């Protein structure tokens, strides 16, 4: 068992022959991910990294039985790429691309609402089930198979949390980078539900940031339905109101968007909130110890 991804997942890469696609496809293959091909319109029939290139996602699905796609397509074409993957019957779409126009994502979200595909991202590091498959741009070597599920809106901050967990001799069941944009395919709550239902996950780390309502929504669900310990951190305690902190979604509008407000809600819902990002790993370690 694992969440979203395992060693049997058959992965294709959209934007396969571009520099980003090529580099990360290589890394994914080295990690042991079952990459079965890629898509670059106009280059169908060629071989790249020893794997077949297809003109369309539907061709790729037909020929390789792919069920996961990871998208490295540039922002102007990324929304189209996501919808193409959903149309072709891909089950898990991981969109790495940063900088997709918000109005494009409004359409994508609507398009996906009547389809079965799950989108993770955009503007995210991807999904990894250590020891089985890595679909994204995270450095594989910092991960270790284990029982901590990690959910995060950020890239390098996720790596930081992963690294802390690994250094304490623990490991991760699955890490989901949900992305830093105002509209994401998989919300914090969606990811929490998956982890709560996963037999391999014994504790969950939720790393949020300023802006939006996702952490509060997840916290309320955890209060009512949570069965595993959850550690929470919200980045941006020192961020000023009204300024976007890098991520398009990381901006404090009203009072509910601040790190303090989110941390308070999470605490009141029984989540173990840490003030310092340096304490994420040891807090989850102590909770797991208590359980045993």
């Amino acid at each position: 068992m694992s969440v979203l991804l395992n060693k049997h997942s058959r992965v294709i890469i959209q934007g396969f022959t571009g520099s980003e696609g090529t580099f990360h496809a290589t890394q994914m293959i080295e990690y042991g991910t079952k990459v079965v091909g890629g898509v670059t319109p106009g280059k169908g029939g060629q071989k790249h990294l020893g794997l077949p290139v297809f003109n369309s996602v539907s061709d790729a699905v037909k020929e390789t039985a792919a069920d996961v796609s990871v998208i490295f397509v540039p922002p102007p074409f990324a929304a189209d790429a996501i919808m193409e993957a959903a149309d072709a019957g891909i089950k898990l779409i991981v969109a790495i691309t940063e900088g997709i126009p918000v109005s494009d994502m409004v359409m994508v979200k609507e398009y996906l609402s009547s389809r079965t595909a799950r989108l993770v991202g955009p503007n995210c590091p991807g999904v990894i089930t250590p020891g089985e498959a890595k679909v994204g741009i995270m450095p594989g070597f910092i991960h270790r198979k284990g029982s901590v599920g990690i959910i995060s809106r950020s890239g390098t901050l996720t790596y930081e949390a992963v690294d802390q967990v690994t250094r304490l001799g623990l490991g991760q069941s699955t890490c989901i980078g949900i992305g830093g944009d105002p509209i994401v395919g998989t919300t914090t709550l969606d990811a929490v539900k998956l982890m709560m239902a996963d037999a391999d996950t014994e504790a969950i780390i939720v790393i949020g940031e300023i802006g939006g309502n996702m952490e509060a929504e997840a916290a309320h669900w955890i209060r009512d339905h949570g069965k595993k310990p959850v550690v929470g951190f919200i980045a941006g305690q020192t961020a000023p109101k009204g300024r976007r902190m890098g991520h398009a979604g990381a901006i404090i509008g009203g009072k509910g968007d601040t790190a303090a407000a989110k941390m308070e809600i999470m605490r009141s819902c029984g989540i173990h909130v840490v003030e310092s990002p340096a304490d994420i790993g040891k807090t989850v370690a102590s909770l797991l110890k208590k359980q045993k």
Partner: protein
Amino acid sequence: MAFTKLVTGNLIKTEQNMNLHEYQGYQLLSRYNVKTADGGMAATPEDAVAIAAGLKEKSDSEIFVVKAQIHAGGRGKGGGVKVARSVDEVGELAGKILGMQLVTPQTGPEGKKVNRVFVARNVFYKGDSEPREFYMSVLLDRDTGKHVMIYSPDGGMDIEEVAQKSPERIFREIIDPAAGFQPFQSRRIAFNLGLSGNAYKDMLKFAPALYTAFKGSDAQLFEINPVLKTSDDQIMAIDCKVVIDDNALYRHPEIEAMRDLTEEDATETEAGKYNLNFVKLDGNVGCMVNGAGLAMATMDLIKLSGGEPANFLDVGGTASAETVEAGFRIILKDPAVKAILINIFGGIVRCDRVANGVVEACRAYGELPVPVIVRLQGTNAEEARDIINNSSLKVYSASSFADAARMVKEVLT
């Protein structure tokens, strides 16, 4: 309750996305047949007089409004909006407002220099009915992932205040992404605003046109406060705040051309040239980090260690000698900075390369006036620490996040 949350959670001043001036907003609105205040932009008192003279000929009214064009709200409170009772007075007032350092509740104490004014014909003229002011905006509702039109009969005021005091007076129409803005929604808006007769009919054109303008410009926000119902029952925009989604500017070169660099922070613009994402803050510890989330977390760590972050700086995926040096220069422009913390989690980017970049940047910069703490973790982190430790530079090397915090505390005391 839901309305309050929605409104206060979304009506935001987004400075990193592209803001337009009021007069530029009118240009966009006019393109989509949204009725706006009659008038024009002037950069000199002479131009202002010429615009007023033209308006006088059309309407035979000698009352005008002169409005400072800056990227900040609350202009009236700072003396940036004045009523003139003759064409000559327009020239006088424009002369006073142009070049002034306008301070409003949103500009900060230093204010903003006014380079342009908008001269409008008076729209609060006498007629068969009383003029009324409404609030209307279009933006993204993050909870549903759909666009929403928010409106209220209480226009001309701070909408967050309305949301707090009388949330029942704030309405919203969620727009279906596939079907688009529907006529029944326009009718509901017009009824909720208490409109009848010609004003009702005018609103049935105004509301969908406003949404089309928002959508067509790939905006993040169109906020019209107030929307005016004139005494002769016309509906028009008499103010306009527009924020465009930077990520969509590639398909709107005509809007990109409206960018006013004098309104944007010079240091932040300079940082942008090096692909550095920089936001200035009022603290004493500068920081340079890869990734926005980690950057925010690093700022938080600085605060927990007894310092105050002096900036947000995301160096992105590549931290080369050139970008690190640019980062040093940008951070050290601020004399309040007492220390710099560099925090890089090397995933794809190798720490030893970053370390070499840091060493090179330190040498290129010359004598660094403040201590620098470098924390490199991830790919080739140990090699990186050796490079830093053997560099004979005044640079401290930390291995964990907690170590970095302790070192910040040490150098500050």
